[in-house]
Structures are given as C-alpha cells and as structure tokens.
C-alpha cells in the first residue's frame, strides 16, 4: 500500500497525553498517557480489555468522534482539535458498532464510506471487497453480520494513510476470514502503516500484534508484548476436577503442599508454576496418589477472561 505524499512525522504515530473522558458521573477514560507505533516503521498494536474498559472511548477520542474533557493527542503528526476532521483525514477508523444503511447497495455504501478519501481509494476498496467475495450489487440489508464487517474493513483498509484505528475489526467473523483480515493488516504494517486494533480474541492479537495494551475500567493495566504474555501464560496451569470433588479442599491441599495458587473457583484452580514446563509439577501431582486426579489440565492458552484473572487479578472480563 502506498502512503500519502506528506513526510512521516517525527515521534510515535499515535500519542495520547493525558486524554480523559467522563460520561456523567462515570469516568470512561482516566488520564491516559500512551504512545502507539514507531516512527520509523509500521506495526500492529492490540488494544485489549473487557467491555466498558475504555477501548472504544479511547479510539473515538483519537479520531475526534468524542471530545476529550482533558488531555491532548497527536495522530500522524496532527494535533487533535475541534471535531477531529484533520486527524480523520490522516487515518481510517472502523467503528466497533455495526450499523449500516441497509437500503444502499454495497458498492454505493463503499463510495459513501470513502467520501473525502484519495481518488483511488474506492477502486482499492472494491478490489478488497471482491477478494472477500462480497456481492457489491446487493443491498446491504441482505448482508450478514460478517459480510457487513468485511465491507467496513474493505473501506478502512483502502485509503492511503499511515494510521488505521480499527475497533474490533474481526468481531463476529469466522476463523478463516479473521485470518485473512489479519494477513492483510500484517502486510499493511510491513508497508509502514501503524494499526491500532481492539479485540477480544487473544490468540489473534497474540499472532499479529507486536505490542499489547491492556485496559480495564478506563485505565491502562499493562503495556506489554505478545511474547511476554505468552511467557507469563506458560507459567499458569489450570486444573479442573469432576463435579463431586470439593475444589476448595483441593485448593487448600495445594497450598499446604507449597504450591502458589493464583485463583480458584467452582470450575477449578489456577496455579503458578516455577518454570514454563509444567511436567515437573504434573509429576509431583501424580505422586500424590491419595488425591483425586484432575480431569482437565489447561496450560499456556488462556482466554481473555482467564488472562485478566490470572495475570492481572481483574475479574469480570
């Protein structure tokens, strides 16, 4: 993908300096200092968090859809001001909420979405949509949720910009299409684009994003890498037993045996391993013959909820 004629600005493509927003008495985003992307090359940064964690509010603030109560932001070298039109000219934004003009044909909708973009954007978006196999002469009312999502993505990927802000671009898509979209974003990043994407799918952001930003309750929880998350996930082992087994007793016995229990609930117990390899611990567990054997052992692949609970001690993801 070519980029706009203007020279790339110095500094990170996205800089948030104390951006803050409250809705009534609720603080949707506490003062957030964050830089996203690298000035010298493209990259994909994942923004993760449960519903209501402030991801979408942050993204909307960045493109001027919501005005900040305090703080400043720069996107591709442009200071966010007024209604953010100057920023939106230098970025593409795909909303997470998927509502479209159902009476329009998909081809018309693409043209409508790309108003104000470079002259070749519509042709590139059309090409992308056709690659997805979308019937562009059909009215959008006949589109499924996934097809609408792909149409929005085709419009978001087409313009020549250096920054793309995508709110859950793969939500509701089947794995193969999710993979296609991530491939496309990876190529885009290799061509020098900075992509900030939010997602609930940890494996996919782990695959594509070199940096992961975790948010919760409008605050930055962690700013880390996929490798670091994987490394930490590998030291967490989750054990589950049959319904008849008293998990609280199991938890107590594990603690007595000197095992660090990170969390426990009706479904099982999570323990912290000393090393990424779970075999020594499992061997130790097997040697305790008087214990009921666990019927579920999960290692190294945490869901978003588990990740939040196990690594950051946050419930309700």
């Amino acid at each position, binding site marked *: 993908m070519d980029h706009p004629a203007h020279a790339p600005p110095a500094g990170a493509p996205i800089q948030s300096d104390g951006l803050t927003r409250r*809705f009534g008495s609720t603080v949707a985003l506490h003062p957030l200092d964050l830089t996203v992307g690298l000035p010298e090359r493209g990259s994909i940064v994942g923004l993760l968090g449960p519903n209501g964690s402030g991801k979408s509010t942050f993204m*909307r603030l960045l*493109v001027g*859809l*919501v*005005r900040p109560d305090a703080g400043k932001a720069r996107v591709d070298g442009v200071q966010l001001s*007024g*209604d953010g*039109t100057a920023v*939106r*000219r230098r970025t593409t*934004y*795909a*909303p997470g*909420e998927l*509502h*479209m*003009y159902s009476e*329009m044909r998909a081809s*018309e909708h693409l*043209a*409508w*979405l*790309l*108003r*104000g*973009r470079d002259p070749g954007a519509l042709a590139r978006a059309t090409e992308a949509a056709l690659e997805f196999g979308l019937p562009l002469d059909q009215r959008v009312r006949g589109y499924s949720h996934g097809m609408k999502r792909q149409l929005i993505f085709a419009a978001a990927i087409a313009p020549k910009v250096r920054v793309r802000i995508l709110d859950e671009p793969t939500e509701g898509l089947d794995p193969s299409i999710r993979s296609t979209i991530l491939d496309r974003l990876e190529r885009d990043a290799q061509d020098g684009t900075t992509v900030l994407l939010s997602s609930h799918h940890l494996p996919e952001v782990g695959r594509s994003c070199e940096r992961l930003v975790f948010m919760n309750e409008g605050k930055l929880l962690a700013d880390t890498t996929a490798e670091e998350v994987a490394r930490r996930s590998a030291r967490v082992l989750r054990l589950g037993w049959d319904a008849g087994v008293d998990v609280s007793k199991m938890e107590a016995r594990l603690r007595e045996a000197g095992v660090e229990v990170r969390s426990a609930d009706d479904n099982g117990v999570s323990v912290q391993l000393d090393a990424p390899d779970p075999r020594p611990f499992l061997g130790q567990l097997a040697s305790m013959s008087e214990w009921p054997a666990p019927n579920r052992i999960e290692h190294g692949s945490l869901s978003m909820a588990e990740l939040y609970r196990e690594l950051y001690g946050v419930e309700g993801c």
Partner: protein
Amino acid sequence: MGREFKSVVWRSLGFAVILETMIAAAIIWWPSFAENIGTIKSLASPIPMLRDMVSSLEAGGIAAYVTGQHYFKACNTLGAAAAVLFAVGAVAGEVHRGTLELWLARPVSRVRLLTERYLFGIAAVALPVFATSASIPWLLSTVDETMQMSDLMRCSLHASLFLMAIYSLTFLWSAMGTQPTRIAMAVLFLAIFQFAIYMVKTITHYSLFRLVDIETFVEITSKNQLNWSIVGGLIAVNLVCYGAALFAFQRRVP
C-alpha cells in the same frame, strides 16, 4: 452527498405532486366556488372564524382564493407535516438506526455534514412551494383568471420561510434528541394545537398561523411587497435554530 441528493429529489417530488394536485383541483373548482359563494358563506356562518375566512375570500376574489387554497390550506397543513418529516431524521434518525458513528467517522467536518443536510432539507421543503406556485398562472388561464407571477413568488417566499421555521425547529430538536418518532409527534402536536387556536376567534391572535393566514397573503398580493417584519422574524428564527443545532451537533457523542 449522492445519498442526500437522491433523498431530497424523491421527497420534494412527492411533496410537489401532492401540492400541484391540490392547487389544480382548487382552481378547476373556482368558477363553481365563485358562483356559490353566498351558499358557502351561510353554511360557514355557525363558525365565526370560518365565516370570516369565506368573507375574506369573497372580498379578495381570485387572489384570496388562490392564496387561501395554496398557501394557507395546502402549504400550511401538508407543508408543516412535510417539514417535520424531512427534518426529524436529520440526526435523531441516525442515532435511532445506529449509524451516527459511521456518518461522523468519515473525514468530513461536522459543520459541513450538518449544513449539507440542513440545506438539502430546506430545499426539499421550499422548492415544491415555488415550483407549484409557478404553475398557477397557467392553471388560472384555464378558468380565464390571472395573477402576477411576482406576487405568487413573494407569497411562496413568505410561506416557505414559515415552513422552514418549522423545519428548523424540528431540525434543532433532532440534533439534540434520539427518538425521531417522539420528536415528530411533539412538533406535529404543537402545530395542530396552534392551528386549533387559530380557529377559535377569541384566542386566534395567539396562533402562529396568523403569520401565514389568508389576510397576510392578500396583503402581500395587494401591496405587491413582502411583510418584512414577519419575514425578518422568520429568517431570525431559522438562523437561531440552525446555529443552535450546529452547536448541539458539534458536541454530540455517537
């Protein structure tokens, strides 16, 4: 832009066809009306406001009849409904269908988005009034009557400004609200209430429809000039409502 334009074309075409049908039927019926004015007056006598209206038509001749039929009756009733329907979805409609974020996410300023929508809506309300008024001289020639085109255009401007004020008020409400149906019902209720007041002789002077009644239009045609105090007031209302809508829209959160 294309979507807005298409929408305006269809809306104003529909509004114009209805207005034209009504004025054509009224003019064709004029000889019969003129012949039976005495009977109509006696039928209207139990309702003082109606009786006064018929008296105005009798005294004003064809000019009063045409302005009464076209501007007072058709434009005020259908036009008010059209103005409300055209304006109510401007922003609240986007909120209601969930497309506000998509509409705002493009690299187009909010001032431009709202101004385009406002002006297209204004055009959809006003153009049919002017276009159908332009056909009146030809329609009148079929019943051997005449009216000055310049008088008709002045009346069209006056009537349009009143409809634009209703449009602008609804537009402002739409820029602040989320429920288009409720907004439409509220504005239409206010309009009907104002018209009801107009029909009650003792309180008629409280009605906004006094600004656009037969006497007002007859005065415009007889003096060959606009009533600038009313026109100025209506322009001010439009500008204030548009400015307030813009202010509200700038702060709107999708």
